[in-house]
């Protein structure tokens, strides 16, 4: 079923954009099972855009995305929805359903896709909320949560069905350093316990070095991947000044166009 052995996500020659406006092009990478994979880049390069195309929300301009070995680009809608249920996504703003309580948000996929009874669902909701440190928030409306809490609640919802693959847009943006470290630890724990493969979009250096095994670095001018590999090695040994500076946070004086 998985053609490239052990690859959970395969992106090949992907071009993404809106209404013919190319945001990123010629994106090719693979995410192996059990990896924590980082998509990095400055604000507005198209990290969220790339993510949304990878999870099948928008049709790409061209190229192919396979998740669990199955194409999410060229497949009938029912197939696509079935595939989508097998992974969890957490959005930059949480994207909780604002007309339901946090608990109902987390319960929704369980109610729809499992045959669990009410008490079992309630137990699982509590379990997932405890995992993200939101035990008391089950009966709160999303509007009453802070930005970081929304994000964590979104993570709880994404994990409701215990997916083997999680996509996470900006896990630590808007969180205080301590919560952000806790979230990183949670992601590491998820991988250790359940073998979850995690794809995160981020520009938090602490998270990058703390948890990711492999990263791709996107650049706005080049509109594509400018570096790929272990972030620690890239930081110390990249031939490109810009990559070096991005990962050492020294400003953006050197555009990659100037590099040789």
């Amino acid at each position, binding site marked *: 079923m998985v053609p490239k052995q052990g690859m959970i996500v395969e992106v090949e020659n992907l071009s993404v954009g809106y209404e013919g406006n190319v945001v990123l092009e010629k994106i090719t990478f693979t995410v192996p099972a059990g990896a924590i994979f980082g998509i990095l880049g400055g604000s507005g390069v198209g990290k969220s855009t790339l993510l949304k195309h990878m999870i099948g929300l928008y049709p790409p301009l061209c190229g192919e995305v396979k998740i669990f070995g199955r194409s999410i680009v060229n497949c009938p*809608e029912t197939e696509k929805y079935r595939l989508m249920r097998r992974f969890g996504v957490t959005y930059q*703003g949480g994207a909780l359903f604002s007309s339901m309580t946090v608990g109902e948000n987390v319960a929704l996929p369980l109610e729809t896709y499992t045959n669990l009874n009410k008490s079992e669902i309630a137990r699982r909701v509590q379990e997932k909320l405890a995992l993200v440190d939101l035990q008391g928030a089950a009966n709160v409306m999303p509007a009453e949560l802070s930005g970081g809490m929304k994000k964590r609640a979104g993570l709880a919802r994404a994990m409701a069905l215990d997916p083997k693959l999680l996509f996470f847009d900006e896990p630590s943006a808007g969180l205080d350093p301590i919560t952000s470290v806790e979230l990183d630890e949670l992601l590491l724990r998820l991988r250790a316990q359940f073998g979850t493969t995690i794809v995160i979009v981020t520009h938090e250096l602490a998270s990058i070095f703390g948890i990711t095994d492999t990263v791709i670095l996107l650049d706005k001018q080049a509109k594509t991947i400018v570096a790929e590999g272990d972030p620690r090695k890239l930081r110390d040994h990249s031939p490109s000044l810009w990559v070096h500076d991005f990962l050492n946070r020294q400003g953006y004086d050197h555009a990659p166009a100037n590099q040789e």
Partner: protein
Amino acid sequence: MTKSVKPNPIVDMMDKIGGAAATFGNDVCFFICFLGELAKASLVLIRHPGRFRGRDMLYYMDLCGSQALPIVICICYLMGVILGFQFALQAQKVGAEIYVADGVGFSILKELGPLMVAVISTGRAGSAFAAEIGTMKVNEEISALETMGFSPVGFLVVPKLLAMLFTMPLLIVFGDFAGLTGGFTVAVTMMKLTPVSYIDRTLEVLLPSTLTMGVLKGLVFAAVIALVGCMRGFQAKSDAQGVGRATTSSVVSSIFMIVVADAVLTRLYTLWGY
């Protein structure tokens, strides 16, 4: 390229007309796709009835039905009063006061009852649907629905549509009675008709089918309001102004479509002899 072109009013006008036509064409295409999505989502819901959002439907039935009842009764009653006055003025000229009952009865049951209820529901429900879906789009809630494997149309549109289809006929029946009461009030207070004679005349000329045909029109209006409202919500640009524009255009387009549908239905009814 940089040379400034003198604005030519005719070219400008042609440009605007063309733009409007293109927008209209896009809307029609979008609407057809939307209907297709709806059909697909309905099939899925029939196969998995457990996925139907029954609680949402009850919520919308309350929002679009019970909460709209006072304003519907109030407006339809006043509509009846206004019609009563107008018909009375004309009828008194020829001494045919009793025909006010015919005038008010037919106008309310066949046209104004359903139409007024539809206009009120557009303002209340249609705009709320557009704003709700538009806001959900801004908050990425629609994307979240999709990646959770829900069809947004099945999840969001079907409960609203069914709620409208259930509540609209009831609202129209209430509205019709309120309208008739309005006419009655004018007849007995202003024209010195006896209550019994007015009621007798009303019951004599109005058939159950008159009421039914009006209520059936209401079903079409209900579908128009729910579908146009939701469609405009899905079309909303992902910003606050986008949601505002979606709401406005949902009201404008659905009133337009209601009037068009009314014209078509009235023509059809006359062809069938009603």
